[in-house]
């Protein structure tokens, strides 16, 4: 049954896109699952016309990881390459080697893993090793041609910026990217996990680390440094007031609007360019 239209690597027009996938972890139950951002990265690759998406996972295949890895296959692709790596391995050399062999134009991955160190450094290390440009926090790929890709980068507060990057490039995907398509049982069950052996280099540095469940850390409320009791009280119970604001009285509506407009322009919150 052909559930997706696979593009063979022989297809000359296809752009080879490697998608790096990890085993995620549900925030409430900790159950293994496809990682949110990685799944979005795969979604982006699958939604890209002319893309030949190559799924890559570096890690171990076991009862715990298999359902999570298969849930990527449930999104339609028929195969995932599994680069065998033990726990606590530094997967970078193995990934680099595999990717050099594969020779994709684009590498997509989530910004940060849901398990382990989750530092988000891996894509940067990879880009540095490969000597490729990297763009982080992608919300969308608008277009790709042979030599460049035009993408939207997610900025804080829901804003977006358009960038063009020379290929080959590595792109990391943010939670602002479109939600991954549903993972279906049938294709997940059928998909192939093609295991490949790779050199192993252990990450020894981690041995000196202490890992504990995250301590809950409420956001800071107020910093009151006053030493006198009365000042401490005043700082605690003070009404939120600005100081030295400008008050425009007895002016026309037009003058008022001018003043407001000036401030809005200064602060750069008005977008009049489009």
């Amino acid at each position, binding site marked *: 049954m052909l559930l997706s239209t696979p593009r063979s690597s022989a297809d000359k027009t296809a752009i080879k896109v490697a998608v790096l996938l990890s085993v995620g972890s549900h925030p409430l139950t900790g159950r293994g699952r496809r990682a949110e951002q990685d799944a979005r990265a795969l979604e982006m690759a699958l939604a890209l016309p002319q893309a030949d998406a190559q799924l890559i996972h570096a890690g171990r295949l076991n009862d715990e990881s298999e359902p999570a890895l298969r849930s990527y296959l449930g999104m339609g692709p028929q195969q995932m390459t599994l680069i065998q790596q033990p726990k606590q391995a530094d997967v970078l050399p193995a990934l680099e080697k595999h990717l050099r062999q594969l020779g994709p134009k684009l590498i997509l991955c989530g910004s940060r893993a849901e398990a382990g160190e989750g530092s988000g450094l891996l894509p940067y290390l990879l880009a540095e090793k490969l000597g490729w440009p990297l763009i982080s926090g992608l919300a969308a790929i608008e277009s790709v041609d042979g030599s460049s890709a035009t993408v939207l980068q997610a900025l804080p507060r829901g804003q977006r910026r358009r960038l063009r990057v020379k290929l080959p490039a590595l792109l990391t995907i943010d939670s602002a990217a479109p939600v991954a398509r549903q993972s279906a049982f049938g294709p997940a069950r059928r998909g192939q996990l093609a295991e490949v052996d790779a050199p192993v280099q252990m990450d020894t540095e981690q041995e000196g680390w202490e890992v504990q469940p995250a301590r809950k850390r*409420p956001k800071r409320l107020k910093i009151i440094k006053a030493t006198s009791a009365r000042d401490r009280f005043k700082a605690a119970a003070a009404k939120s007031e600005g100081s030295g604001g400008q008050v425009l009285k007895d002016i026309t509506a037009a003058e008022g609007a001018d003043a407001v407009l000036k401030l809005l322009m200064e602060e750069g919150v008005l977008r009049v360019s489009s």
Partner: protein
Amino acid sequence: MSQFDAIFQPIQIGNLTIRNRVVSTAHAEVYATDGGMTTDRYVKYYEEKAKGGCGLCICGGSSVVSIDSPQGWWSSVNLSTDRIIPHFQNLADAVHKHGGKIMIQITHMGRRSRWDGYDWSTLMSPSGIREPVHRSTCKTIEEEEIWRVIGDFAQAARRAKEGGLDGVELSAVHQHMIDQFWSPRVNKRTDEWGGSFENRMRFGMEVLKAVRAEVGRDFAVGMRICGDEFHPDGLTHDDMKQIAAYYDATGLLDFFGVIGSGCDTHNTLANVIPNMSFPPEPFLHLAAGIKEVVKIPVIHAQNIKDPNQAQRILEGGYVDLVGMTRAHIADPHIIAKIKMGQIDQIRQCVGANYCIDRQYQGLDVLCIQNAATSREHMGVPHIIEKTEGIKRKVVVVGGGPAGMEAARVAAERGHDVTLFEGKDQLGGQITTASKAPQRDQIAGITRWYQLELARLKVDLRLGTYADEPTIKDLRPDIVVLAVGGKPFVQQMPEWGADEGLIVSSWDVLDGKVEPGKNVLIYDTICEFTGMSVADYLSEKGAKVELVTDDIKPGAAVGGTTFPTYYRSLYAKEVILTSDLALHKVYREGDQLVAVLENEYTGQMEERVVDQVVVENGVRPDEALYYALKHQSLNKGQIDLESLYAIKPQPSLSESTEGDSFLLFRIGDCTAPRNTHAAIYDALRLCKDF
């Protein structure tokens, strides 16, 4: 789960599971009027909260453990005798029946009380230093007495346990005996009970050990502490962190209650129960600071009144439980309403502090806006049942508190209600009061009525003065007059009201007159309005002197409210002058001269100002009443015996078919009183319509 899932996350306190994160924290109810025994009223008051879904009630603020910690002033619960045990059983059963948990705060008040009542006991404190708020002098406690009091604590805890309560909270806050020992401000001892940190901690530690030894591990024992005394020589936030960590490390405690501010001066006292002038949760950072250094759950109360606010605080992880004590006084069903998705139906506390200000006068705690609170035992209902009798046409005239409550209650009964209000908005005097600085929150009372009247589909006729024909046109069965009154500035012709020499406080607050530059306010009433007008005018830049013939301006404003007025008025250099009566006002050029007469010497003096504001209370507006009185079936009379017994008016059984109607008047148009009186008038009269 829902937008309020953090509130409804159960929590363990010791071995106790609390069903949600909302606590009614300890406050003096002033209902244990039967010699310190919990009365029927007391039980029903807490039962209502439990029924409304409150997770944990800590009752009996400052309930005493010893015979020489007098409970006279605010009728606190007396745990110094086994007589209390069966009373506790009633209380515990009533709360447990509804799935709530109940603990009691126990304490020895030390110097913080009054000696002139009951057994006229001798007050004691670590170093015999006088306490200013209660004006109480005391002796220095002796070693033998220390050990006796420690034993009393243990016995009191045993009584709470035997009475079926779920735990005790040791009060080490508000400058009670335990924190009197803590604080170098009042503990000047040089023996093993004072001096070093350990020595100052000793009394509390011995109490804790004794209590724990008496009740065992399977009974919740908590401690209420403050997060920063805000006294120059008091315990700071860092001190309190050290203290909390010290007691927490014993493993003997199950929870901390943390509040901000000490309270042995009038000024700091006002911080403890922040009134409407304070921002929301002003002292949360102090409780959060304590939580950082302890392992057991932390409860924090102080200006937490709104479900969103509670959710935000809990979700943020600042504390483990929120105290919503005044919120429960205003609406004991707040939790149920959150659960039922009736957020807009919650009667939210506005921070008027009527409750606590009554308590500090030794009066029973009542809510300014909810007249059913603590009157459950009398049968005053929180939930108005629909009538099973006939549906009537009820016309309410006046959209102040009395009128709004009358309309609400009548509509809840299922009647067809029309409400007339001459102004274009509801609220009456509440609206006027809300115009003053720091007082805008009082409009929250109106806000609730507005939402309720809309929900109940009351026919609102705003901007409409109802006269006799308009009313009779509606062919009402019942007419309720709640038209309020007018400022009474004509009392002395020499004041010159008729000549326009003076203006009323309402004129100023309602914005009918421009604020003067140099103003004399003459206030015979000494309640909120005078202070508010002074605050309002000085805020607008006026030079203000507030004069009264009473003993001090604002004399009738309660203990947690006058300090915030004072803070504002003194900061704006308002002059507060007492003992002078306004004799007359005359014009001199473009200035006004106010002649003042010293109440005690008759000495005259003058002030040259450009505006004289007189606050002389309200005169009932009776015209409409007398126009309708003789046409009504009941001649406008309310049967007082039924009213006071919370029984239906006998006249309600009369037929109001055709043109006949019943007439009642309530609120200030009967006799000027306060908001609570107006609402209580309406509730007890209309609940049986």
